[in-house]
């Protein structure tokens, strides 16, 4: 289904008044005849195309070259065809289909735009647009397909795209209806069979008659299983998806896109040797899709990683930051698993693996072909991949919150045997972030405010659409917010046990509507009504005041620049309370703290920064500033807490580790001090001697004198004249 471009040719050839007869999809009649053979799995298809290479019709030559894998030659032939038939949208559309087959989406889009300019309702171009949108999980795929059907009601491929998109939206009823329509249009709708068969398998039917019917038409139609595998993967049922890809390849070993997907998904589950074998086979066979190439590159980069194992965890970190990250990541990893095991009343069957990528692009490879997932972390069964704190700007995100989010997925996916709608597992994961600590998780964002104001939150029965086929990137964010709030609402009104019961219901393959009706005794529409009524008072002040807030907060920035501190305070206080969740750049807390500082009111400056931290502010500079103020006020424990909070946001901050290490020394907390000075040293500080000396002091507190002596010698090795270290060395030597 994914590569319908090469397989969706129609059997019925409709001749047109162009110089050469064309099939319904715009290809020449002679190549359509070859396509028909290919579609039936006829071994004569190759010979048919080879014969076409000698055709005097460049469009037919282009089709033949494309089918035989000569993309470069096909490209030239299509270019020649377009030159000959400048006013004909067909060659442009076919050329675009070839580009889609060759992962050149932007080139395809340009050609399709030109084709549609030549003929506004040209159905083959509209279908190509629908396929392109569908492959990118864009919301307008169905719109294009329906437009194509309006222009040509017998356009089978358009109907097949509609079926696929409905199934991606987790709407099997609509998908089945659309697939059956496709079969009414043609009994040879292979994708129609594939969709219906997939629905059966997703419903845990051991076998399906639909695949048999497709195989009757084409005994080598592995694409049916590849289609099913695609849906299992996007439903996070990776192991089953992998088995289906293997079935697809057993039927048709030339299905390179299926082989590549198999490799990618084996890799996701940690089966790296087998993954590499398949990916290399694709690559050497000329199938060099971005997914294939990126995955191979990522596999190559694993030599730069180190793995740490415990009975329940596997932590893979990049060598360059493993020493720094390990204590913090391992600690949160263990804490999250212990918490969830108790909370979900579920014991995982094997260790969970977390991979941490300092290069966001490496992490991004993990998200290839995965729709709607946040860009910070991704879960594949027992495998979690996430950005490293160093992979993004300081303070841009909360790594611990992300880790807990992903580990919640591990539990929910395992408890449901991966049979859970996306809205629910994401909602649970978002809910867990703030349940762990109220200052974690995402705040109410402008996109969600706009969605609430414009009444664009989706009904619960359709919320999956916001993840899979969003109308734009902002709808994904809004859907995360909404999913999280829904779980919040359920937990608050019906209790945590209801959420647990819902997990088990989804595991029993119940739909969202059925689960809501069973557990909450509500129709989905009534649930939506109650949810909105619950949400409104929490957000009303912000939603109503948002437009004014947006205009005025800029003014406060200007006032701060002009050092008009009294005005900053008088206006800033009001704005802060209109939108207290806004903690990003240019927030009211920062301006107010600046103003209080300028006026010498340290108490208010501190209070403002504490408010900022409590509500989820993440700017390392502001948090360090707060810790300094708290320290100056003798509140060393509070200062340490502030910096501990920063550690869960950003770990590469040398001064913060030093500050916290010194605080722990003052507080006589040896282990904490040891961890902080070790972190400081791991970051290769400018002041190496100072860091070793701090660690030596920490070891003394932790009653580890031998380690202390080693560290003080290291300090003095870097700076022999360092007097405090000399003093400590003499003390430690005296104890020998």
């Amino acid at each position, binding site marked *: 289904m994914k590569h319908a471009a090469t397989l969706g040719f129609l059997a019925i050839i409709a001749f047109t008044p162009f110089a050469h007869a064309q099939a319904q999809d715009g290809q020449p009649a002679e190549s359509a005849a070859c396509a028909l053979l290919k579609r039936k799995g006829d071994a004569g298809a190759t010979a048919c195309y080879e014969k076409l290479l000698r055709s005097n019709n460049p469009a037919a030559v282009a089709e033949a070259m494309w089918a035989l894998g000569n993309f470069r030659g096909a490209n030239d032939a299509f270019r020649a065809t377009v030159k000959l038939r400048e006013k004909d949208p067909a060659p442009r559309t076919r050329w675009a289909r070839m580009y889609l087959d060759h992962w050149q989406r932007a080139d395809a889009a340009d050609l399709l735009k030109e084709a549609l300019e030549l003929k506004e309702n040209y159905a083959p171009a509209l279908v190509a647009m629908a396929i392109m949108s569908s492959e990118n999980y864009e919301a307008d795929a169905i719109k294009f397909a329906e437009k194509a059907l309006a222009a040509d009601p017998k356009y089978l491929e358009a109907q097949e795209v509609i079926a696929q998109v409905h199934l991606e939206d987790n709407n099997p009823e609509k998908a089945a209806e659309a697939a059956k329509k496709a079969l009414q249009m043609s009994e040879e709708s292979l994708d129609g069979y594939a969709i219906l068969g997939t629905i059966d398998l997703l419903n845990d039917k051991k076998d399906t008659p639909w695949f048999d019917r497709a195989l009757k038409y084409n005994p080598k139609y592995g694409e049916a299983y590849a289609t099913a595998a695609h849906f299992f993967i996007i439903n996070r049922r990776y192991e089953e998806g992998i088995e289906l890809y293997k079935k697809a390849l057993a039927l048709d070993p030339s299905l390179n896109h299926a082989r590549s997907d198999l490799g990618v998904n084996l890799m996701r589950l940690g089966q790296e040797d087998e993954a590499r074998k398949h990916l290399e086979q694709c690559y050497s066979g000329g199938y060099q899709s971005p997914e294939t190439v990126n995955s191979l590159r990522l596999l190559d980069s694993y030599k730069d990683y180190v793995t740490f194992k415990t009975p329940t965890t596997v932590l893979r970190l990049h060598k360059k930051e493993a020493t720094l990250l390990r204590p913090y990541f391992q600690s949160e990893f263990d804490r999250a698993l212990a918490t969830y095991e108790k909370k979900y009343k579920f014991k995982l069957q094997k260790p969970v693996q977390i991979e941490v990528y300092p290069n966001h692009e490496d992490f991004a490879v993990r998200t290839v072909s995965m729709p709607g997932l946040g860009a910070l972390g991704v879960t594949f069964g027992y495998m979690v991949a996430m950005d490293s704190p160093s992979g993004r700007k300081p303070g841009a995100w909360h790594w611990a919150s992300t880790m807990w989010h992903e580990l919640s997925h591990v539990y929910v996916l395992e408890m449901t045997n991966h049979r859970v709608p996306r809205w629910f597992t994401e909602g649970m994961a978002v809910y867990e972030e703030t349940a762990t600590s109220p200052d974690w998780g995402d705040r109410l964002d402008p996109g969600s405010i706009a969605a609430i104001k414009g009444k664009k939150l989706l009904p619960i029965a359709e919320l999956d659409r916001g993840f899979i086929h969003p109308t734009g990137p902002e709808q994904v964010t809004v859907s995360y917010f909404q999913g999280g709030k829904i779980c919040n609402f359920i937990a608050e009104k019906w209790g945590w046990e209801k959420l647990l019961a819902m997990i088990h219901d989804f595991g029993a393959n119940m739909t969202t509507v059925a689960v809501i009706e069973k557990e909450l005794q509500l129709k989905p529409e009534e649930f939506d009504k109650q949810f909105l009524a619950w949400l409104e008072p929490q957000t009303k002040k912000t939603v109503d005041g948002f437009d004014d807030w947006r205009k005025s907060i800029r003014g406060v920035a200007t006032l701060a620049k002009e050092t008009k501190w009294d005005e900053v305070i008088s206006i800033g206080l009001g704005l802060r309370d209109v939108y207290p969740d806004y903690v990003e750049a240019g927030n009211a807390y920062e301006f107010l703290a600046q103003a209080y500082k300028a006026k010498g009111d340290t108490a208010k400056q501190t209070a403002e920064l504490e408010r900022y931290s409590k509500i989820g502010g993440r700017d390392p500079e502001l948090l360090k500033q707060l810790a300094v103020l708290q320290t100056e006020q003798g509140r060393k424990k509070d200062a340490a807490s502030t910096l501990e909070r920063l550690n869960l946001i950003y770990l590469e901050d040398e001064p913060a580790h030093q500050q916290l290490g010194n605080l722990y020394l003052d507080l006589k907390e040896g282990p904490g001090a040891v961890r902080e000075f070790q972190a400081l040293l791991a970051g290769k500080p*400018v002041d190496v001697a*100072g860091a070793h000396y701090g660690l030596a002091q920490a070891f003394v507190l932790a009653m580890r004198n031998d380690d202390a002596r080693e560290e003080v*010698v290291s300090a*003095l090795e*870097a700076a*022999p*004249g*360092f007097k405090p270290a000399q003093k400590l060395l*003499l003390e430690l*030597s005296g104890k020998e």
Partner: protein
Amino acid sequence: MGPTQEVGCDLRRAFLTALLLASVAVAGRADTFYLTVAGLGGEQEYEQRFTGWAKEIEQVLKNEPNAKHEVLMGPQATKANIQAKLADFAKNSKADDNVILFLIGHGSFDEVGYKFNIPGLDVTANDLGAMLDKIPAHIAVINMSSASGAMLSAVQKPKRVVVTATKSGTEKNATVFSRYFIEALRDPAADGDKNEIITVLEAFRYAEAKTTKFYEENKRIATEHPLIEDTGKGEGVKAPTAENGQGLAAQRFAVLHTGSAAAVAKDPQKQALLKQKEEVEAKIDDLKYRKAALSLQEYRQQLQKLLVDLAKTQEALDK
């Protein structure tokens, strides 16, 4: 005799004798002449930033002993005034004195060469080279402006330390290096060898590391690559080492004294202990040089013993 301050310890044995001599010479302390020039900001934000940094340097150097600090900023930062101040230094400084020139602001670069942007006629790299050549003292030029890498060839001389915020004239964006170089003068962490003296090399290393980190952390392509050069030939380097031969003069060139190390050295009653201290320091340096030839355990044992000796000597000196 070279500059008169303490030394670091990461160069080859070939330098050790010279370094020891330098540390012995602490007693005869020379004068230091500083000139800080904050050039044209162009925009109010930059004007404020540049003058703010110049004032920060002034503040930091306020208590520096045996020092004279001149600051030119705003309309005062003209070519004539720069020339006059440097001419004054040329007249009043001796061969074993130190002169440090801080340039803060925007620089520019065209086919002709580097220019430091100031009110009126800009001052070129060649102008600066000619002015500095008249000064008998040891010189360090800390050019923190954009495009400053382009001035190197015009001002470099043997034993003259030149620090530039950028590696070439094509790095034209406003720099963050300035902020970190000045921060180094306030942050005790910059004093890598903990001898209470921040040398040009220490400040450079501190600022270079912070500048690199700034771009890494903010996921921005680095638009400045600070360099240091103190041999008078070739290009500047990012990381001075014994291998590239850079950093020896910079390591001995004090920018700021943060403690009382020099006072101790003036006490005639402590000369014997000082000598003993220097001998132990020499042994430590020698041991470090031989580190690769020893097992780690052997090295650490010997090092610890020497460090204990040194600590005891220092304890006696401090009594």
